[in-house]
């Protein structure tokens, strides 16, 4: 514990120093607030605008959580299916990689044209950004099952089902979680992007309004809250990972 405090001290101090430089620079160079507001101004705005901001914050959180859960479940299911049927995997895998070359920001307007401004196209955007890292991480994790452990299971007469539940899946869990962590931050990004395109609530909407009225301080408020939200997601997933992934250092294939 003492060590982890020591470890986090350096980056913490660094952030403080950066903020101080930022603060001093805006004051000394007299940078106009609409161009770059000082950190003190941003934090003041954070507090004063919270009553009006909170509804946007919770709307985005809700959207991101729903999209994230559906996206992760969908990704896991697809990965397991592809794992079970290698032939389908060979067919679909290249398509999956190719689909990721389409930036979600160009896909989003299409989704609005097809599905309107409701919640469905927004969730669809989040699902699309979430499910890919999950599918790839899960497939890789399942494919990397250690052959010595597999050899033991086969010689000991384990059934296919036992091999999956006792070896392949727990072995892939560490890899799956690295995918889940990426998906969590993507889900917040996806939620904000989807709100830019048209929403009546949400951090994305708040940002668009702030930007069009040159309230740069409010844009920064939105950014800070987005960061906090991502951090919050990340921490929760880290805690769940800590509970579920045992005995291995994260992501490593150490086995003996």
């Amino acid at each position: 514990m003492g060590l982890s405090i020591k470890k986090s001290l350096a980056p913490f101090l660094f952030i403080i120093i950066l903020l101080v430089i930022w603060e001093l620079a805006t004051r000394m160079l007299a940078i106009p607030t609409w161009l770059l507001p000082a950190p003190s101004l941003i934090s003041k705005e954070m507090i004063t605008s919270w009553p009006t901001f909170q509804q946007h914050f919770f709307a985005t959180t809700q959207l991101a959580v729903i999209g994230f859960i559906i996206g992760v479940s969908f990704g896991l299911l697809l990965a397991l299916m592809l794992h079970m049927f290698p032939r389908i995997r060979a067919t679909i895998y290249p398509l999956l990689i190719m689909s990721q070359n389409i930036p979600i920001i160009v896909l989003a307007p299409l989704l609005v044209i097809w599905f309107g401004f409701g919640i469905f196209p927004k969730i669809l955007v989040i699902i699309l950004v979430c499910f890919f890292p999950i599918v790839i991480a899960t497939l890789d994790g399942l494919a990397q099952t250690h052959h010595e452990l597999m050899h033991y299971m086969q010689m000991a007469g384990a059934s296919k089902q036992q091999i999956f539940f006792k070896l392949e899946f727990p072995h892939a869990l560490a890899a799956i979680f690295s995918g889940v962590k990426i998906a969590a931050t993507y889900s917040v990004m996806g939620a904000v992007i989807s709100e830019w395109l048209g929403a009546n609530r949400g951090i994305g909407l708040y940002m668009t309004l702030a930007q069009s009225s040159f309230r740069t301080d409010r844009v920064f408020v939105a950014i800070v809250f987005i960061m906090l939200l991502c951090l919050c997601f990340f921490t929760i997933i880290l805690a769940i990972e800590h509970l579920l992934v045992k005995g291995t250092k994260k992501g490593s294939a150490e086995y003996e």
Partner: protein
Amino acid sequence: MSNLVIKQLSKSFGSKIVLDQLCFDVKLGEFVSILGPSGSGKSTLFHLIGGRYLPDQGDILIDNKSIVGQAGQMSYMPQSPSLFPWRTIRENIVLGAELKGKPDLALAEQMLKKAGLTEVADAYPSALSGGMKQRAAFIRALLSPQDLLCLDEPFSALDEFTRLDMQNWLLSIWQTYRKSVLFITHSIEEALYLSDRIVILSTNPARIKAVFEPKFERPRAPELLLTDDFLAWKRRVYQTIKADH
């Protein structure tokens, strides 16, 4: 009654004959070693008994029933400990039993104690030394419900001192539980020290070259390794292996 009977067992891969007309048996409660150089098809033999391969010819019987192509008729200890990193030692040792039904947890505790692993029962394998891991892997095989234990060069990766400790420990625990053991090794000394019977294989293809039955008294102690009788046996086995090479 014999426990394991291998009858005229042959296996080839493509045009390469790996096993040629192997015939031997392991009686109930007997410790039999298969001794042969690397690449003599010892692992292929285990794959056949484990039901992973089908033989070209011959039969494998356990208690007079053919087990050809049937997986899980033996309990198995591989060369590397192959413990599952996300399971504690206690969870690891019952894995073999778990595959076949409900593990006997009381017996597992007892075995942990016998192996001196009680203190690390809740630790993960990464915290254990090489010898401890091998002991855990052996207990895992012992706790499996099958009566035949197949050990595939289990101590070959250990250093000399640990290996002797492990051999003594294996003998003591085997004397208590008395399962039939088929033991693969390439160490003459190990084979002589541990077994009732030694089957010597030739290479390319593997045929049975000789079967020795040293009949050293049990329980055996490390002093045996330096007796004239033991050394004479060692010479005999060595000469048999080296003959027509």
